[in-house]
């Protein structure tokens, strides 16, 4: 036991130091700082907007006032039902973040342990896990997500479930390659030499030290998931009316493009700002972690 607390303390300190250094670097990296600023702003909006705007008010039909162009009363105009686009767009922040965060939570909950196991165990386990991931990756992600939601029923939560499933391999891949390199570190060897159980070494020492690239992957996957979910809702395979989801708003805007372009522009802007925030943050963190690699948007040239 004494030995265990010894390694554990060392590992904890090592991790804390790394995270501290990462946090300090974010301030000096424009992309990461702007991205983080946007994300924080959106989270604040998501928390407080439902207190200021009620769901009922945002769904209030006012036929007299349909297709009203932006004005002081309706800063973003109104839609084909006369609903206030400003309220609906703001409430969309919450839905968008919910979709992005929960589908990535599902993907990482399965992908990270699987990839960690593959990288740490190696051999046949590695082959079995990674070949399965290859098969899952042999489909365009949105195609599988679409098929799943169409079969099990088009709802927002099913869309989240489907997207979570299709992003598992991306997390498994990143975690695996990181786990392989962390496993060769001396403190992991030390822990094994001291006779720690494999599950302890994997979950307490290997995975926590593989966290940084997983954060990058998560940030970029959130932006992919938000775009994909908007696509699913646009096709009628995600959120259903009258949910104020941006994808759904764009679907409705499609029929009235020339008549009321603001119906498309504001939800589009909402998507752009959210996705940009997570993309910039992920990209910035990656630059900090690996200043030399020529990497772009979740792809490395290795």
């Amino acid at each position, binding site marked *: 036991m004494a030995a265990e607390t010894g390694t554990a303390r060392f590992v904890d300190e090592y991790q804390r130091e790394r995270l501290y250094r990462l946090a300090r670097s974010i301030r000096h990296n424009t992309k990461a700082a702007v991205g983080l600023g946007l994300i924080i702003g959106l989270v604040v909006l998501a928390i407080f907007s439902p207190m200021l705007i009620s769901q009922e008010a945002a769904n209030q039909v006012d036929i007299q006032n349909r297709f009203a162009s932006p004005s002081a009363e309706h800063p973003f105009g109104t839609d084909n039902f006369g609903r206030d686009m400003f309220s609906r767009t703001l409430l969309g922040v919450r839905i968008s973040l919910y979709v992005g965060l929960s589908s990535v939570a599902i993907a990482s909950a399965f992908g990270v342990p699987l990839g960690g196991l593959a990288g740490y165990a190696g051999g046949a386990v590695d082959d079995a896990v990674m*070949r*399965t991931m*290859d*098969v*899952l*990756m*042999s*489909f*365009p*992600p*949105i*195609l*599988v997500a*679409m*098929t*799943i939601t*169409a*079969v*099990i029923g088009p709802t927002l939560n099913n869309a989240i479930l489907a997207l979570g499933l299709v992003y598992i391999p991306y997390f498994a891949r990143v975690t695996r390659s990181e786990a392989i390199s962390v496993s060769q570190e001396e403190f992991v060897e030390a822990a094994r030499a001291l006779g720690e159980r494999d599950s302890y070494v994997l979950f307490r020492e290997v995975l926590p030290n593989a966290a940084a690239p997983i954060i990058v992957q998560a940030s970029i996957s959130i*932006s992919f998931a938000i*775009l994909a979910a*908007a*696509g699913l809702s*646009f*096709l009628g*395979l995600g959120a259903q009316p009258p949910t104020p989801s941006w*994808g759904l708003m*764009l679907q409705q*805007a*499609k029929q009235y*493009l*020339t008549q009321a*372009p603001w119906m*498309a522009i504001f939800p*589009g802007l909402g*998507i*752009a*700002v959210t*996705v*940009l925030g997570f*993309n*910039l943050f992920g990209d910035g963190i990656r630059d900090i972690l690996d200043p030399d690699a*020529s*990497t*772009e*948007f*979740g*792809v490395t*040239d290795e």
Partner: protein
Amino acid sequence: MSLTRYAARRLVFLVGTLFGASVITFALVNVLPGDVAVMILGTSGSQEQVEVLRQQLGLNQPVYIRYIDWIAGVLQGDLGRSLRFGDPVATLIAQRFPASAFLAFTALTIAVIVAIPMGIVAAVEQNTWKDFLTSVAAFTGISLPNFFWGMLLILLIARYASLLPPSGYVSPTEDLAGAFAHVLLPAGALGFSLMAHITRMTRSSLIEELRSGYIDLARMKGLTSRRIVLRHALRNAFLPVLTVIGFQLGFLFGGIIIIEQLFAYPGLGRLAFNALLNRDAPLIQGSVLTIAVVFMTSNLVVDLLYAVIDPRVIAGGEG
């Protein structure tokens, strides 16, 4: 390992992945909850009607028997018959395939033609306003869904400016000019994010190449900057660009489904989407599998191209 052996290995690997993909495709439609017979008849069907239909469709057999039946047919080019249209699935797919191929190919071409020069300018004139503008354009490109770009193109170019038709398809073998007029808007929308990714990757990998020793050597030999960039650095910078194209193909093929829907473009994506809405199980399986096969084959082509350009990939063995 020679290139041929590498290609052969990759091909064997592809066959294995394809087998897995066929299992997943079948499972998506047949193992997930939902009775196909009930879906076809709707709530109006009586218990007997459902039972008769189940019998006809062979739904009462164990799922692995049904998979073996299906895959045996697939291997002989028989994908079954569409429940909705009654036509063979293979025929329906063959009819729609050229339109989608034309769309995807045009999108890819537009993206490459626009993005590579943009990336070169951004790299050569690093940290100038041109570079900054390119970065902003690229980040905007990846931050909006392709269907948003599609709607914007429809609004600006088709509706306001009336330059191109907002929807439809003309076969390039019948009327080449008409075909391009119809494909440009959907292809532009589809290629937007790809363009952004290629631009960024061209920029960053070219910057890296321009810093390396052999470029200094070329400068000392007195080669012009233009020649150095175009003949030497770009060649090596192209590898990461190729990777990004390979990686983005999945998004390109996935994007086809939404874009074809938006532009009422009669391709494979629209066929697959309608099959999903109609619960047309054989057609869903057939079109999903076809898209996966095309996707995997394209990835293989990218990998082989990579190996041809950079023989170190083969020497590395794994991959």
